[in-house]
């Protein structure tokens, strides 16, 4: 297990190199000249050339990549073209916010998703089951943009219960967490329900029932534990996606997160920040996957990594 973990961690390195090459070349293929964007409206050709030279953008691409790599391995991701701040500093604060948002939204989604899914499975075809599955379908379909604005309109503007935005109190995280968590919640609920139902029909559950075990023991000890495998996969995948996909939620709630930073930086052709942001998200994504794999092994003794 330890060796497996170590090997997976080491494999991160070539993977991130490949990602960095891809990202590096892709963003340079995008139309739009960063020097021009930075120089801004009304800059003269001379001003633009000045900017290009001072940023080293006039050097060949491979040279730019190699010097970037050389510094990156020392933890120096350069300075932001747009703001002149060190990229690491720029990213750190933003990543923390996105991580917070993701953790809160996934906690919310996992807890409520599991509960909803279990109840639905146990009370199959009941009114509760039907309603919650329709709501789950809406949860999967609704865009975070619309959901976020509606939540704000209702809970902040109309009722005045929760702050509209900001990082100043934990209450400000509630609406963004619900907005971002709605889709994974719906997916977790549906997955939990279907895998619980599948397991509940298996022979060993029938045997357990025949032995006269209390229903809650059957549900929680036998059925749920086995259904968790599927649920963990969904949670893990969703967690990774949320890290990179929280842009809309961050924008609507004015949260300075890494997704928003990446989008702003792409628009400004602020390449050093885009590269680092994507690398950070990619690394986090792989790490989350690793954790998911380890959890598999933990909950399911049939899976063992050697």
């Amino acid at each position, binding site marked *: 297990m330890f060796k497996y973990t170590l090997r997976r961690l080491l494999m991160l390195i070539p993977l991130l190199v490949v990602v960095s090459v891809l990202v590096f070349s892709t*963003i340079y293929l995008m*139309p739009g000249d960063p020097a021009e964007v930075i120089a801004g409206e009304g800059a003269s050709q*001379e001003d*633009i050339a*000045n900017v290009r030279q001072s940023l080293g953008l006039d050097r060949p691409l491979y040279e730019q990549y190699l010097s970037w790599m050389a510094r990156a391995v020392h933890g120096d991701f350069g300075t932001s073209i747009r703001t*002149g701040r060190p990229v690491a500093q720029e990213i750190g604060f933003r990543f923390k916010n996105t991580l917070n948002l993701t953790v809160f939204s996934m906690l919310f989604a996992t807890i409520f998703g599991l509960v909803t899914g279990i109840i639905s499975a146990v009370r199959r075809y009941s009114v509760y089951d039907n309603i919650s599955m329709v709501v789950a379908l809406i949860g999967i379909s609704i865009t975070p943009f619309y959901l976020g604005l509606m939540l704000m309109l209702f809970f902040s503007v109309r009722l005045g219960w929760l702050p509209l*935005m900001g990082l100043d109190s934990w209450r400000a995280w509630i609406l963004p967490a619900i907005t971002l968590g709605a889709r994974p919640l719906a997916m977790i609920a549906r997955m939990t329900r279907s895998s619980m139902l599948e397991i509940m029909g298996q022979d060993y559950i029938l045997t357990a029932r025949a032995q006269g075990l209390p229903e809650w023991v059957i549900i929680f000890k036998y059925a749920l534990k086995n259904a968790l495998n599927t649920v963990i996969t969904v949670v893990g995948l969703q967690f990774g996606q949320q890290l990179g996909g929280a842009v809309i939620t961050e924008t609507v*709630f*004015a949260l300075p997160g890494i997704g928003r930073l990446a*989008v702003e930086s792409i628009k400004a052709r602020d390449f050093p920040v885009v590269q680092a942001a994507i690398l950070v998200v990619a690394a986090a994504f792989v790490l989350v996957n690793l954790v998911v794999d380890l959890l598999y092994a933990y909950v399911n003794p049939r899976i063992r990594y050697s």
Partner: protein
Amino acid sequence: MHRKIKWLPLLLATILALTAGCSSGGGQQPAGGTQGQQDSAGAGGGNDAVVYGVGVDATTMDPQMVDNVPTANAVMHVHETLVTWDKDMNIVGKLAETWETSSDGKTWTFHLRQGVKFQDGADFNAEAVKKSFERILDPATGSPRRSILSMITAMKVVDPYTIELTTNEPFGPFLSQLATYNAAILSPKAIDQYGKDYGRHPAGTGPYILKEWQPGEKMVFERNENYWGEKPKTKTLVFKIIPENTTRVMALQTGEVDIISNVPPFQIEQLKANKDVEVVLAEGFRTIYLGMNMKNKPFNDVRVRQALNYAIDRDAIIQTVLGGTATKAVGPEATSIPGAASDLPTYEYNPDKAKQLLAEAGYPNGVEIKFYAPFGRYNMDKQVAEAIQAQIAQAGFKADLQTLDWSIFSNALREGKDTQLFMVGKGSPSGDLDFTSQICWKTGGSLNYSFLSDPTIDKLVDEQRRTVDPEKRKQVLHEMQLKVQEALPWASLYYEKQIVAKRKNIAGEVIWPNEFVDLRYVEKK
């Protein structure tokens, strides 16, 4: 098996992250100019804090590196220039009290205000001005706006409070250039101490000091208790960054922010319905126009350019799409800019005449054109472009409209290989006609997307620069505008108004036509 699949999501995530950025056109762009702030919990709290909700964060607090309106707004609460504008847009003294020009028009002597200190305690004097200007002129500084002062060839400190600036030739718009935010004066001590990092440790002579800056979240300014002039009424000023328009409007309604700018026209009615909120419309320097590439067919023919001008119903666009939040253009320059001509020949809506001109130019059955417009850069830009597409179709212009991300859009315009028609806006940071004439109309100008190249116009553009006498210069500028209107590189549409909304208990804000939202003397009652 699942082990193989694991790499797929990573790849997908990367692609998603990239495409999310490319396709999200709906956001805000720098230079759109929005600012805002928030208070209460965030900073200082209480009645002595005013919060301004802005769409875009500043990129730097270094005036010499500023290239967009949101950044200029933040910078100008901390810094000051030698001269500035009064409410009628006349140049008046600020850090310079008086000045005179030599008889050859090349040397300007400025007498500086005494007893002024920078926020870090350094003295303001002629040496400080010299050091500031030397910094922006040094190519190593990498200022994107070095050209704003590049006509200066010599600087001489006459005495501690007198400085002489010499230009390479007589330079008419010099004072307007000096009033522009890029020419603000920086503390010499801070320049020495922080160098390139000045943008994070600004020290100007202005009424507010930057206290805290959480990128993407907020900027907090505190009153400068040692300010030489009238002290601000509000102790703490917060610029709160709220990218989404709808959220900004809601934040104003809930009172989480006190004032917001760049309100979308369609939200005005909703805001007016709130009894605690007031909507303020202010004149702006920004012209929104349709540019025509004069190098490419069909717009290389002036009759086609005239036809297009006749084909647009400007009033209808202003009334319907923009809800009345713009002033109909009567020429390429917003008439609120001093010296802008309002008596140029105009083109009233006349689709028949447009058709006739188009037929004369050899397109009796109409003409197919490419039409580029940005998305999310100006108020309702996409909707305006769509309305124009429908209007000009009546006159025979079959436009293939493409709305593009700003950086792709501006790149296409600059290259100009296959551009034909495009919609774009042009503000004026210096409030001087020199700005537009140099970059939009002169041959090879950096925003001359129409590729206008006319020796007479070039000559007039140079001549107005060399003319220091304001009255004479006005005449040259007028002739220049007349020639431009004859050449007709643009179909000028309207002058954008700035839409600001605030809580009713807020007073003292000034919205300058160059899009500076001035909160230096704002107060909460």
